[in-house]
């Protein structure tokens, strides 16, 4: 029982602020709970799957799934490619400024998304830094955040910038665990550096790559702050993420509906996390 005494503070906080909300969010998604029911939470009506039916009947929700999907499917490979290139470069035997490079590329990871979103909005203004720089080479840049074509790519670009550091660190650790003997054997066989990278390093790095992909996609699936600060989901819902949609419905006071939306997102995240656990187990 001493053990439970040690666990008590955690169990209380965890139970009341995580477990109960998780369960009641699920329960709420089957009710017509609105902001007027806060004082009498048990007086709401059970509506079965109505909220989910309404949700999938809402073109904006479907749009938000598409936007979130695009964000993940485009954002992940780009982030991974850049991170891998950086990790390989940093692992290629350079010794000078190595930790300075690492700190530099990693710095955006620790910053508040809200704050960097403000900065990026400033950079992406019609007459901002990016378009001015493009102007020097004769390109007339679009109004990035007001264009239905360019707003989402702009947010993806910022996410790549902010998250590359995380994957770079993970990939670097992976690269350093590639056994030297294997590389030596490839060198003896006369393999070129590129060949060695493709045929030796990359296959050995696969678990690390997969892990990084899953890790980052869990974060990308929840993207919200970027849209909140930079575009408010616009223009014309072109950056409306599912998390933003959920928040918006919550703001309208449709709590049951918002819960249903959040559970759809949760399902996607849970599936990805399960995949992550599977990967980890196969690693051990």
């Amino acid at each position, binding site marked *: 029982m001493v053990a439970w005494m040690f666990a008590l503070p955690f169990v209380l906080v965890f139970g009341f602020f995580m477990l109960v909300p998780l369960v009641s969010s699920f329960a709420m998604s089957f009710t017509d709970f609105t902001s007027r029911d806060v004082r009498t939470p048990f007086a709401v009506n059970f509506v079965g799957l109505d909220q989910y039916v309404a949700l999938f009947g809402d073109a904006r929700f479907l749009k938000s799934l598409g936007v979130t999907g695009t964000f993940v499917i485009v954002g992940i490979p780009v982030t991974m490619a850049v991170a891998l290139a950086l990790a390989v470069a940093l*692992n290629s035997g350079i010794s000078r400024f190595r930790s300075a490079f690492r700190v530099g590329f990693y710095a955006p990871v620790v910053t508040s998304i809200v704050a960097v979103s403000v900065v990026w909005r400033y950079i992406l203004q019609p007459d901002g830094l990016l378009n001015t720089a493009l102007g020097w080479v004769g390109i007339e840049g679009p109004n990035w955040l007001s264009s239905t074509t360019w707003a989402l790519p702009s947010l993806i670009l910022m996410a790549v910038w902010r998250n590359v550091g995380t994957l770079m660190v993970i990939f670097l650790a992976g690269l350093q665990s590639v056994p030297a003997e294997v590389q030596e054997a490839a060198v003896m066989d006369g393999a070129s550096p590129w060949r060695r990278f493709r045929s030796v390093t990359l296959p050995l790095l696969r678990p690390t790559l997969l892990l990084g992909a899953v890790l980052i996609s869990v974060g990308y699936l929840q993207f*919200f702050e970027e849209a909140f600060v930079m575009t408010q989901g616009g223009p014309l819902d072109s950056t409306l993420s599912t998390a933003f949609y959920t*928040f918006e419905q919550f703001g309208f006071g449709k709590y049951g509906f918002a819960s249903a939306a959040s559970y759809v997102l949760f399902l996607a995240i849970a599936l990805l996390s399960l995949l992550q656990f599977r990967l980890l187990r196969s690693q051990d």
Partner: protein
Amino acid sequence: MSTMTPPSPHPAVDRLAQPAPSRRRRLPTGRALTYTVLVVGVLLWLLPFVWMVLGSVKTQREILTKPPTIWPQDPTLDNFGRWFTDLNFGQFFTNSVIVAVVTVLGNLLFCSMVGYALAKMDFPGKKALFALVMIMLMVPGVVTFVPLFVQVTSLGLLNTYPALILPFLTQPLGVFLMRQFMLGIPEPLMEAARIDGAGELRIFARVVMPLCGPPLATLGILTFLGSWNNFLWPLVAAQSQDMYTLPVALSLYSTGQQATDYGLLLAGAVLVITPILLLFVALQRYFVQGIATVGLK
């Protein structure tokens, strides 16, 4: 060891390999290229921060000039000053610090306690508890914030410090971190204390905790970072200016009347980012370790 053509994934290989003369000649170009790419890359990566600082010290008039000036013509600290005079920066900053510090302390203590129980004690329900912790690792805030809002409201806690702090006072990741480390603490150390008549609380406080420096540092930093940058929940739970944390205040100004007042907004961004960036540069070893642990848990 640097006599091979980069990129070579392992330095040990370089040492052992016999480089062909033709390769040796190509070497400087390759290495120079790697350095060039890295230097240009890192400058690009840091450019947003530089641009933020430059913008934050430009006058309101200058920041509207098109095309933008690179170097501030008439550097001023007015934008920062306005955070203190027109807006309530002191209050926002204090809120952020109070929330972050209490959250960190709570996590360090409570996650260690339950981590200790899970690592070093046998009790009924232990397996179930640990399984629950692992499952909850993947529950994102966006799923729980709606019912959490209802709960906090019905408790009358909305727009208070407890509302901002309590839900984050422990976290599954912290429990996992502490448990993993404590599993590695040798049993005989604790046995010796037990023979000397020490109770579990004493063993925890005097034997186990002093050994837990590294995971506590990692947990403390990760928690501080998470709390400082946390957005969705504070946005929902803080309803009036006197409870706003820094990111909430910045986001609301950046989407409200001051949406195009970039001098003010950039100064705000500098004020939010600088403390964390300084902390990061000072403690980067722990940050990177922390992320690697989280990533490779």
